[in-house]
């Protein structure tokens, strides 16, 4: 028996007889940790949460919380006896009760336990729902319903909280503020949480660990920094959609050679034999702009992202390379102009496949 707070071992997640995600294993070591599951829509993230909550059965592997098996081929503890709370993505508020009554129904469960410290007033302020307390679910917006549902789930003080795209209907302008508050309340109340999202920035901010689900598999489960900078597969790189893979040849334990960029030095995350032909991950932050450099490529696109620009450059071999430039850089380059890259090129973590 492991000492992990929560553990999933070799589980096939399915709806009916259709397997959505195969052979998944991951764990949450300590109580109060937050992890995020990231993946494209329809991949099976919600199925994972529903199964953990006990709303779907499994016939392979096991799910355990606080050392107790909740689901396995033979065991299936009923959802109402798991003390796991799930906030659904769609409106799941009781339609015939006001928002206040909906939240208080969650508080009833909390009262029975009287364990942790979280109160409804705090949550109502935090999620900014004081204006809608006396309204019925059909009288409020989708974003408000989502926040009310979140409040109801939080107030139950479950052993494990599952949030399915908790902020997908929340206005963009309000999202960051809610993310901060949500993280604060989860940390303060030491609520162990699994959040499902398709927004990588939300996952990187909220989760101490992130799982990437692609092509029916949990491809990577690691801390956000590693998921971003040290992706373990081409699929993860493509999903995060920030870098490109260019052909290169390993020339020494600390360098490679690319036809367009020349010599690139750095530390290999995974060693490759000298002479190996590899695909090198180039992320926008890896290359630096230098007007004085003689390594120049043609600008074919420029995206303004507020704090920065992402230039897309075309090399003589027709490879498109993204380069990050701070938006306060003294001048801008237009499409079709030449754009210099600083040499020598050094990348801290060299990721190759």
């Amino acid at each position, binding site marked *: 028996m492991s000492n992990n707070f929560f553990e999933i071992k070799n589980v096939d997640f399915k709806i009916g007889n259709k397997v959505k995600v195969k052979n998944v294993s991951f764990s949450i070591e300590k109580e109060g940790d937050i992890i995020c599951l990231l993946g494209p829509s329809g991949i099976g993230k919600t199925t994972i949460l529903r199964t953990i909550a006990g709303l779907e059965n499994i016939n392979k592997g096991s799910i355990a919380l606080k050392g107790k098996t909740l689901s396995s081929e033979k065991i299936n503890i009923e959802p109402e006896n798991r003390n796991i*709370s799930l906030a659904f993505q769609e409106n799941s508020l009781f339609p015939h009760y006001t928002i206040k009554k909906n939240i208080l129904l969650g508080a*009833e469960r909390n009262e029975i336990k009287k364990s942790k410290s979280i109160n409804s007033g705090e949550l109502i302020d935090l999620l900014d729902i004081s204006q809608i307390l006396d309204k019925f679910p059909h009288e409020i917006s989708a974003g408000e319903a989502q926040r009310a549902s979140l409040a109801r789930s939080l107030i139950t003080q479950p052993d494990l909280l599952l949030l399915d795209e908790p902020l997908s209907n929340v206005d963009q302008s309000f999202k960051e503020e809610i993310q901060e508050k949500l993280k604060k309340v989860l940390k303060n109340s030491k609520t162990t949480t699994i959040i499902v999202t398709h927004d990588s920035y939300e996952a990187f901010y909220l989760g101490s660990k992130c799982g990437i689900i692609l092509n029916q598999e949990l491809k990577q489960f690691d801390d956000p920094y590693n998921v971003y900078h040290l992706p373990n597969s081409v699929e993860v790189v493509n999903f995060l959609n920030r870098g490109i893979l260019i052909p290169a040849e390993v020339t020494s334990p600390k360098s490679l050679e690319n036809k367009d960029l020349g010599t690139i030095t750095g530390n290999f995350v995974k060693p490759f034999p000298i002479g190996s032909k590899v695909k090198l991950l180039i992320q926008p932050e890896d290359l630096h702009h230098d007007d004085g450099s003689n390594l120049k490529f043609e600008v074919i696109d420029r995206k303004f992202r507020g704090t920065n620009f992402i230039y897309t450059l075309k090399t003589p071999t027709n490879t498109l390379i993204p380069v990050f430039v701070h938006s306060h850089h003294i001048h801008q380059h237009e499409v079709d102009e030449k754009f210099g890259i600083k040499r020598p090129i050094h990348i801290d973590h060299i990721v190759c496949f």
Partner: protein
Amino acid sequence: MKFNSWFVSSFLISLIVLIPVITVFASFFEATSNYYEILKNTFLIEYIFNSLTLLLSVLLLTFIIGTGAAYLVSFYEFPGSNFFKWALILSFAVPPYIYAYSLTAFFENYGTAFTILKNLFGEANYNKNIPKFDGMFGAILSISLSLYAYVYILARASFLYQSQNLIDLGKNLGFSRFKSFFKVILPAARPAIVAGLSLVAMETLAEFGAVDFFSINTLTTGIYNSWIYFDDLAFANRVSFFLLLFIFSLFILENLSRRRAKYHFNSKGGFKQKEKIKLFGIDAYLAFGFCFFIFFISFLFPLSQMLYWTIKFPENLFDLKITNLILNTLYLVLLSSLVLIIFSLISNYGNRVSNNKILNFLSTLSISGYAIPGVILAIAFITFIAWFDDSIVKSFGFSSIKKIFIGSVFGLVLVYFIRFYSLAFNGIKSGYEKMNISVDESAYLLGYSKRKTFTNIHIPFLRNSLLFIIILISLEIIRELPITLILRPFNFETFATTAYISASEDLLEAAAVPSLFLILIASLFIIVTSKYILRENHE
């Protein structure tokens, strides 16, 4: 496949509902008396011809009245338009057979029309100048003016939810008001109108009281007569077979059109509330005139005729055991509602929690009872019980069970159950459809058991739907005639059977009192639920 309690109860309900259909089909090959041969060579063609004439005429008339009235109240504002919006559904309170009594009472020789003319202009032979609305024409009028509300309600709902964009589109293409109606509004509402007409068709083919009163030989009266006068159950079932085939094809048509109607109504995106066009001058008078005429002849006329006779012959009021009739009606209504609600809840809840395809199929089978005419249900039920008693019960040496099922409240409620199960089942189903399944799951995750979710979440949520269903069932049972007539216990009468018996003995003035009570009680129920009917029917 789990054979849990949900499956077993759904299976049992479906089996009970299917008994009449199976009986009718099984009896098709049985030998019948000579009556069949005589009838086949003489009257069967007449039965079919009369049924078709009645059906097509009623469809045409209900289409014109229902669609016309719905169009006026949905698109235009004129004096009384808000009143007519709900007043036009009051015709439901007057069953076709009571309408038939009123029609005859007013226009017959020396009837109410004669009295009015005599009082106005003095003694004369007015009888030859007063038109006679009897026979086939009387039956068509009686049924149409009672049933047009099906078309009216569904067409109105469809018109109401037609987006302003659609109307604007017509204007944009330069259509006149007339052209817009035929090219845009009517085609868009077609599925709803077809659904309404299908209901009218089923009710018309099942109609017994009015056609029997006017002595029209249709398939339905043929079934009743072959049983009551010639004691030929096998023949009754054989005619039922033909009628059922016809009705099932209508049922399928109705289901298909309803599916399309749903598709049409789900246009949430781009929906823009219409603004009603205010009518002035002659247009306003014409619109008012049309709606008032329909309201008058379909509701006020039979109501006043019955009221007039009740006042004119007050002894009938005192002769009638009103308290008994009210108690009997209440007894039937309460018992049937209770049984229907309990089983429909079990079935719906079972479908919801188990989400099993076989269960869903069984539920669909079990709602087919509504399509089967009451006469067929009652006679097939008697046939089945007789067969079961003779072939099974007695062969095991037990004493006869006929008395338990035939001529008993138990048997009556059982057949009501078959007839009105779809009403209760679909009512609860549409209530449940408004509640996302994740609401149940949220309750489980808040620590609620399935039972507590049902009692604390589902029941309070469905409360209004349940109330509405109880009132609808009550309305149907109060108006119901053939099943009650055939299966009621000895000396157990309702307002409907009392009216029928008096009318069939040519004592129309005695039929007026129970008819008046029936109209008043039914109107009360309709007024209570009118908001719900007019708001909810689009779903």
